């Protein structure tokens, strides 16, 4: 046996296992997406067992495409993912640059900054929607109430009262409504995932060449130019990593959407799959295939964009 064959042979079980791990679910999903397969049907009991004789061709895909929530779910998935990516990358870079400077208590600040990442997504969602964003009992409600109270008391103050009489009564925003629930999801996930971005950017900043910075200082570069021409290109790869990993994670958001609004006006693809999977496995599988395609498009598109703008 040549000395190349043995390592290959020893790798085979692992590779095979991985292949099975990946290909079997994907294959089954593809298969289900082309047949009629429901969990419960009194009229057509033969559809409740997956079988090639229930072949439906692209019927499931057509059905999904024509369902009223599909376009909304795609738009919403993209909106949520892109907003979260945008916010976490910007906040991540700002915070990482800020805490990269030496200051007293930096160690503690770093640990505190990372901590949101250790909160479970469902817990995170419950905390945010009930304790912070709730229009009556949450911080938001209390804050708006306090503000209104303050304005009301200032309206009767001498001298400036006329000015505050012009102010309107502020209304708290209900983040469970169909128009706003996506924002709630974006806020809470951004809060949770910014630490991830900070962590990655922070380690990368530490590997930045100090002498390059000194050379730039001597070349007349101010703080902004140093950031723009040295730090940002240096962060190009980590940004690509953060974008890639987060895109994959956030395309499959579920718990937050379920907890905030039960998908009311705020479905994304996984949520749609979940709804279909209550009974119609065929349609759920077709949606799953759409989700795979979407994820690939997003990943390729985002990576191209990040690569082009930063690496010059």
């Amino acid at each position, binding site marked *: 046996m040549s000395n190349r064959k043995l390592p290959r042979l020893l790798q085979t079980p692992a590779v095979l296992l991985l292949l099975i791990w990946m290909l079997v679910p994907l294959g089954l999903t593809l298969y289900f997406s082309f047949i009629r397969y429901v969990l419960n049907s009194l009229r057509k009991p033969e559809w409740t067992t997956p079988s090639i004789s229930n072949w439906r061709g692209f019927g499931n895909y057509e059905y999904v495409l024509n369902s009223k929530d599909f376009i909304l779910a795609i738009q919403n998935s993209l909106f949520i993912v892109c907003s979260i990516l945008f916010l976490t990358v910007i906040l991540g870079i700002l915070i990482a640059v800020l805490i990269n400077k030496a200051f007293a208590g930096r160690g503690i600040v770093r640990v505190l900054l990372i901590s949101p990442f250790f909160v479970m997504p469902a817990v995170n969602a419950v905390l945010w929607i009930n304790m912070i964003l709730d229009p009556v009992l949450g911080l938001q409600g209390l804050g708006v109430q306090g503000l209104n109270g303050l304005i009301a008391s200032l309206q009767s103050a001498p001298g400036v009262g006329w000015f505050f009489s012009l102010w309107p009564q502020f209304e708290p925003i209900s983040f469970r409504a169909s128009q706003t629930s996506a924002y709630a999801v974006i806020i809470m996930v951004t809060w949770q995932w910014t630490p991830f971005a900070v962590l990655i950017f922070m380690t990368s900043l530490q590997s930045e060449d100090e002498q390059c910075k000194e050379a730039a200082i001597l070349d*007349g570069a101010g703080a902004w130019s140093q950031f723009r*021409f040295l730090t940002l290109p240096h962060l190009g790869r980590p940004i690509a990593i953060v974008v890639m990993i987060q895109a994959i994670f956030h395309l499959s958001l579920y718990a937050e959407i379920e907890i905030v609004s039960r998908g009311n006006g705020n479905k994304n693809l996984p949520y749609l799959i979940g709804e279909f999977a209550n009974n119609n496995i065929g349609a759920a599988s077709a949606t799953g295939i759409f989700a795979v395609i979407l994820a690939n498009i997003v990943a390729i598109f985002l990576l191209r964009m990040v690569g082009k703008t930063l690496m*010059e």
Partner: protein
Amino acid sequence: MGSIQLKQVQKKFGETEVIPPLDLTIEDGEFVVFVGPSGCGKSTLLRLIAGLEETTSGTIEIDGGDATAVPPSKRGLAMVFQSYALYPHMSVRKNIAFPLRMAKMSQTEQNERIEAAASALNLTDYLDRRPGQLSGGQRQRVAIGRAIVREPSAFLFDEPLSNLDAALRVGMRMEISELHKKLATTMVYVTHDQVEAMTMADKIVVLQAGVIEQVGSPLELYHTPRNLFVAGFIGSPKMNLIAGSEAEKLGAHTIGVRPEHIDVSKTEGQWKGTVGVAEHLGSDTFIHIHGIEGCDPLTVRAAGDVDVKYGDTVYLTPNAALIHKFGPDGLRMS
């Protein structure tokens, strides 16, 4: 324009005093080399001049004006770093253009200067490459190019050649010397290689533990070292320093004889010794000799190929006129 004057400049990192108060004048157009052993504060001194470190006390004057509090970018100095410090994400062209871009120079003038620098440094073919795709020597040339396009009033070099191999180092040494002749701009050059110092400098500043031991032209340092440290540091191979009875005969505490100022004979001479290692370089022979009181081994540099081998007995005669005498305080006795 490019004269630099340090007046009582001192640098402390916390409690440790790296550079005790020091005076130094660098004339316009001079090639000044700082030499000294590792950790003696050469880089620190250069960074103080560049403004990358703040002085603890004392003043730095550039072209007669007080520059102690002037930010580095406004001092009109360009620095070349040991690790090149090129911007890794930019092409060679953009690297060289960077200081011009920061100075908001017009595109046409930028291009003119870049072309001029690139052809002077043989970089024209590499302008569109990234630094990562260049050899060490090419990178160093890019770093120099980035420095010269700014037309600074002085260049600061911090061991620019120490990452290069020996052959390339000799070549780059010549190029930098030629550049200095052509531009006639002040250059301050840090190295711990005394051959570089001797070959390139108009003026050498020998440092030890932040203290200036001697300032002078290469030949002044060679012929009249002010103290034992300079005597041992300048010259290759090192000067033989002999203490004890031989020195006392001449009324000194220590005497120094350069290896090239000793004659070797197999029959007669002032001192008798045994040959240890003999290094035959062809043009010269370095012979290490044991058995001479006060200095073991003693090194002799004989011109041409001398036929000696391990264990031979030889007789040595120093050239009496070229013996350096040092007192018990380590200083030269006139």
